[in-house]
């Protein structure tokens, strides 16, 4: 069995002057949960709809399980899909909603009954067969949607922002349910969302998109700790950027000058002295040092400009060097007031260099 379950090969889609998908090439592996993540308009929903066949790409081919499905109409692609607004059939009961794909496939009645019951058991909605969608809560409706998508055991499950219409607490619960279900059934899943917490929590791999192009594909750890571009670094979590110039490259590390400071950071491959780089470090990974801790690598003096109390953390804006600033998040218990001098350490392994400046 080929490793790749879904392949986008050079897929492009344009709407007049707007490029929704720009030569998208992406492989999704069998059994993994891949999330397409990005801001609105980045093309993730378009890509998903190219996968379902509801949208025809202008260029490129799409493969599912080794078969070229670009010209195959939606209803023959054997996919399961869960929608943001549930898209349940309001005039059908839960039983008929879930059994709809089976009815369309002309399966015999007793088989339909068994498979429907199985699907409802999967999503823990036994007993609701005779209800109508309007009688159910948001979470229940989404489970019906899930059951309907899974009832005929498709190879691929697509989820289009399925949790956006649910309240926050429900969202967290459903997140785990979905992940657990998908893993247990061994289904390949493509998940679309703009919520990064969701993406990081659920995915085996994340594909970050921006303006129709793929910015980076990797595991949640890779995305978070080793962003390949400024966009990705800024999109996920909080960030600080410092512009600097490479002084010396020494094996796996390099020394970079930022203003008056010299920082030691992991080396950026294929760069040399004199080149400009962007040093990226997250506010919650910068350490605030006590007065008696020794100076050392990547330690600098700064002054607190602004301190905001956020309950569990303090959010600081610190000024240092000549007009440079850093955002730092620290423990709310060890508060530092504005105006006070502090010493910071930017731990080497928590720094990350990006090309450019």
């Amino acid at each position, binding site marked *: 069995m080929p490793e790749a379950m879904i392949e986008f090969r050079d897929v492009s889609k344009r709407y007049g002057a707007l490029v929704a998908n720009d030569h998208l090439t992406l492989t999704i592996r069998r059994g993994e949960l891949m999330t397409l993540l990005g801001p609105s308009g980045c093309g993730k929903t378009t890509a998903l709809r190219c996968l*379902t*066949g*509801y949208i025809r790409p202008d260029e490129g081919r799409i493969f599912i399980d080794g078969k070229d499905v670009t010209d195959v*109409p*939606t*209803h*023959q*692609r*054997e*996919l*399961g*899909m869960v*929608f*943001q*607004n549930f*898209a*349940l*059939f*309001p*005039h059908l009961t839960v039983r008929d909603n879930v059994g*709809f*794909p089976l*009815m*369309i*496939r002309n399966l015999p009645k007793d088989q339909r009954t068994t498979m429907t019951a199985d699907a409802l058991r999967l999503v823990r909605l036994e007993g609701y067969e005779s209800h*109508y*969608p*309007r009688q159910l809560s948001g979470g229940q409706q989404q489970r019906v*949607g899930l059951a*309907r*998508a899974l009832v*005929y055991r498709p190879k691929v499950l*697509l989820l289009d922002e399925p949790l956006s219409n649910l309240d926050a607490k429900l969202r967290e619960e459903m997140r785990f349910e979905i992940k657990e279900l998908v893993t247990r059934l061994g289904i390949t899943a493509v998940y679309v969302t703009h919520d990064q917490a969701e993406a990081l929590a659920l995915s085996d791999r994340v594909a970050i998109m921006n303006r129709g192009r793929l910015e980076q594909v990797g595991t949640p750890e890779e995305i978070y700790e080793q962003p390949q571009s400024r966009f990705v670094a800024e999109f996920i979590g909080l960030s600080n950027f410092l512009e600097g110039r490479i002084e010396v490259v020494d094996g796996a590390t390099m020394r970079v000058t930022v203003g008056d400071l010299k920082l030691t950071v992991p080396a950026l491959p294929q760069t040399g002295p004199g080149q400009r780089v962007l040093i990226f470090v997250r506010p919650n990974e910068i350490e605030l040092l006590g007065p008696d801790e020794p100076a050392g690598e990547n330690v600098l003096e700064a002054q607190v400009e602004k301190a905001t109390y956020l309950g569990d953390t303090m959010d600081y804006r610190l000024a240092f060097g000549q007009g440079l600033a850093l955002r730092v998040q620290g423990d709310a218990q060890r508060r530092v007031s504005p105006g006070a001098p502090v010493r910071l350490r930017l731990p080497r392994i928590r720094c990350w260099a990006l090309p450019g400046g």
Partner: protein
Amino acid sequence: MTAFWRRNSSGLITVFLLLPALAGFFGLFFYPMLLTVILSFRPEGQVAGWTLENYVRFLSDPDGRWVILLTFILAVGSTALSIVLSVPLALILREKVRGHRFYRLIVLVPLVIPGLIGALGLLLFWGVRGWFNLFLTQFVPFVTRPMAVNYTIHGLIMFYVWLYFPYTCVTTLSSLESLDRSIEEAGAVSGATRWQVLRHIVLPLITPGILAGSVLTFMAAFGAFSVPLIAGGNYRPLSVEIYKEISVPIPARWSAASAIAVVMGGLQVIFLSLYMRSVRRAGGAGGSR
């Protein structure tokens, strides 16, 4: 006195505002309606006395019953055909094909012109010297004689459809456009072809809208007057029969006409209630959000 005013001033002002409308309603509708009902029970040409003879005469006469049947045939036939025409039309129009705004306007045209004019134009077109028959006799093989359309029942039904189908089409279209497209996408992903999506998902959900529009078409067709007056030929539905009773015989037979009018009004109300009840039942099972 002031206390009364203060407590009820709001209500009194509302009543005052409604006075012109109430006066108009009573004077120009309710009272005439009542008069018609009273007249229907008067012996012909007299100012006092009660009788059922007008009703008896009308309903026992086979011609009278034919008039009722005809009115229903025309109304039901044109309503059914309007539905058949409107549903595909609405399905096409919602796709926003090129020029769809123009076509939506075209659909509205029969609504804004008086029935008289529409009937006139239709008579001219479908008549023996009209373009339809010219086309038929000159370009269609094996046809030598023109087809009679004017002054036939099927012709009249078609005229009604021309005039009154927009009611059905517009409400169907609006019902269609209020559907969430993602439901249809869900259907397609679930394996349903376009036709299956239409049959199992779209049509059940827009049926209430179709029926609501068809009620309007039915009412217009049932009560149509100017159209059958000039285009009905020998076919006279209830409305024309009423007019005939006061315009042809001398002296005019007001009581007879009134009896027919009451029958007509009553039938319309009955049919309407039945229709609405079945519409509500159909809509209830659907239960669209």
